[in-house]
């Protein structure tokens, strides 16, 4: 058991090549290189471009992170890496690099689950035992509600999106409204100039049988259709009002379901992570509603909400300090592992 070990974490599940370093629960470095500009030309993440970019960036990103932390690889006690879910070719570059560090340095390797890592990053900077919590994970790649009883051993999914991820919905609506890419920040900005109550866009899976069958699932495709229909039917629409009302509908559904998950599970702590956690309206409304419901709200700082290496290092560090056995040499990356697979064995 090593509660103050130095853990280097590598993340390459999508288009970010990222390395983070922690000592115990203290963040020492968090370096990210993104190939997002290259993907923008194609209007989405191209797996082949992502994998090529990871390979090119990896050694420099590792070295920069070590420099930032003021350490050398000799100081590293364990290596952690995202082993899934993600794009398989992209994951493999990270897993292979991490395996090489582990074999070359003769240090333990932890293959970790990307979704759990998003939640684990919240432990950085804290002390004392970690409480069970509900995780609302919202980004361009995921929209899930997780129940975290123990971050290294017991996590399960309560609900997830049935179609688009929340971040994708933002991107699509931003495109329709001609607000540019990436859509999240663009809509956030535009919405500040309009009224979220101007247009009553639908809230999916919030009523009747839908709610009973899918209490914690999301669906954003109907909302997207409703917005385009509204634009077609309303030639003199006010763009800021559309952006604000769309955003309001998304925020409302996300928070109602997340808070309901807290109430039904009896867990009074909510962690919101993922790129959409940067949305100012979501943060503002979450503070209000959690306060009203008597729930402790935790939102990691924005740089730690989007995909990064620190979250991988954080989960690896929690596993190391919990005395969990490291992954076997030659661990398999997996594009869609179950959420219960937190640390690869």
């Amino acid at each position, binding site marked *: 058991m090593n509660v103050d070990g130095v853990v280097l974490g590598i993340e390459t599940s999508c288009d970010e090549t990222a390395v983070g370093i922690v000592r115990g629960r203290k963040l020492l470095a968090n370096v990210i290189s993104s190939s997002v500009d290259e993907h923008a030309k194609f209007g989405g993440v191209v797996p082949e471009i992502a*994998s*090529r970019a990871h390979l090119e960036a990896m*050694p420099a990103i*590792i070295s920069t992170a070590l420099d930032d932390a003021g350490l050398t690889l000799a100081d590293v006690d364990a290596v952690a890496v995202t082993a899934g879910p993600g794009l398989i070719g992209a994951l493999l570059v*990270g897993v292979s690099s991490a395996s090489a560090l582990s074999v070359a340095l003769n240090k333990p390797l932890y293959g970790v689950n990307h979704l759990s890592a998003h939640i684990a990053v919240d432990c950085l900077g804290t002390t004392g035992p970690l409480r069970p919590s509900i995780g609302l994970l919202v980004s361009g790649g995921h929209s899930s509600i997780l129940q975290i009883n123990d971050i290294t051993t017991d996590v399960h999914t309560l609900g997830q999106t049935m179609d688009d991820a929340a971040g994708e919905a933002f991107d699509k609506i931003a495109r329709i409204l001609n607000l540019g890419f990436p859509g999240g920040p663009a809509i956030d900005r535009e919405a500040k100039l309009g009224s979220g109550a101007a247009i009553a866009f639908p809230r999916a899976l919030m009523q009747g049988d839908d709610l009973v069958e899918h209490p914690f699932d999301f669906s954003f495709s109907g909302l997207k259709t409703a917005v385009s229909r509204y634009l077609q039917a309303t030639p003199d629409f006010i763009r800021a009002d559309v952006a604000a009302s769309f955003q309001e509908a998304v925020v409302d559904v996300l928070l109602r379901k997340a808070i309901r998950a807290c109430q039904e599970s009896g867990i009074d702590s909510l962690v919101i992570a993922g790129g959409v956690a940067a949305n100012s309206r979501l943060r503002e409304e979450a503070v209000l509603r959690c306060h009203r419901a008597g729930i402790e709200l935790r939102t990691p700082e924005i740089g730690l909400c989007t995909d990064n290496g620190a979250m991988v290092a954080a989960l690896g560090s929690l596993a190391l300090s919990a005395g969990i056995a490291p992954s076997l040499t*030659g661990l*398999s990356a997996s594009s869609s592992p179950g959420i219960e697979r937190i640390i690869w064995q």
Partner: protein
Amino acid sequence: MSISLVIDTSTQRTAVAIIQDGRMIVELHHDDALAHGEILPRLVEKVLMESSHVDQVIVGMGPGPFTGLRVGIAFAQSFALARNIPWLGVCSLDGIVPAVEPDSTGEYLVATDARRKEIFWARYKNGLRMCEPHVGAPQTLKLLKLPAFGEGAQKYKFSSNSDLLYPQPALLEKVSVDGPLYTTPIYVRRPDAFSAPVGVSFRAMNYADLVSVFDIEIKTYLDDPWSMAQLKEELAGKNRWYFVAESENQVVGYVGALHAGGITDVLTLTVRLDYQRKGIGRELLRRLIDWARVQKAEAIMLEMREGNSQAQPLYVDFGFVELTKRDNYYGPGITAIIMRKDLA
């Protein structure tokens, strides 16, 4: 005294070895095209038991299927970083060279499996590689009738020796001393995603385009442009296909082809001088290949002047292979190169 860790994942084989000053200490391999990621760390861990000290890492940089290839390179560069030692990249095909010259010409091919009914290959003479590695259809390489080695030649049944299928760590180590080195992966087959030229549209050629096309002809082929009459005749001709690239309402490039007897011939592929190197030729050629497939062509052939340094790499990228040369084809002293791409 120098100890090398040698790694190659460019084929279905994951090969690992420790070599000390040219002497093999230990060599391990495992054949599984889908498991390089799992196998490589385990094999390296095992060979390190024979010698945990390593002075340098030597890695096959391909060509090879991308996912497996990157596993080896990512491992090599991170291992080198961790041990603070150098890594050297070599061409994986150079590791499949016969010990004895296979025939009197000293020429032979090395080919590995590129999947999608294609092979990665290079041509060698007297033990030296004559060109950068290419990707192409096996049928085309068979036409060269040269001795051939490697899993690619084996798979498509034109192999001369079924024992020489995969890159040999010992040979890769040797190449790292006296052969060409590579610092970036040898992808050869360009990543599938390639951005289309911005602001350029593509459509069929019509008579209204001929004035601009003729203007480009005379500026590009100073001594030998097509005449206006020839252009008209071509555009009206049977089994022909002409397509233009347009930017800001001007024709900036065009491609023409003739399909007959199961073969599509490239008649012209021309891009206006001030619009070259923007990916327009690539896009025109891609569309031509699509058209040839629709015609159910078994192959695409073309003739080009030797020394057309702009066009040849483009054709090679798309899997065209130089078949023969014809001297004085375009006039005294001007040699024509005949290239062919088989459509699987």
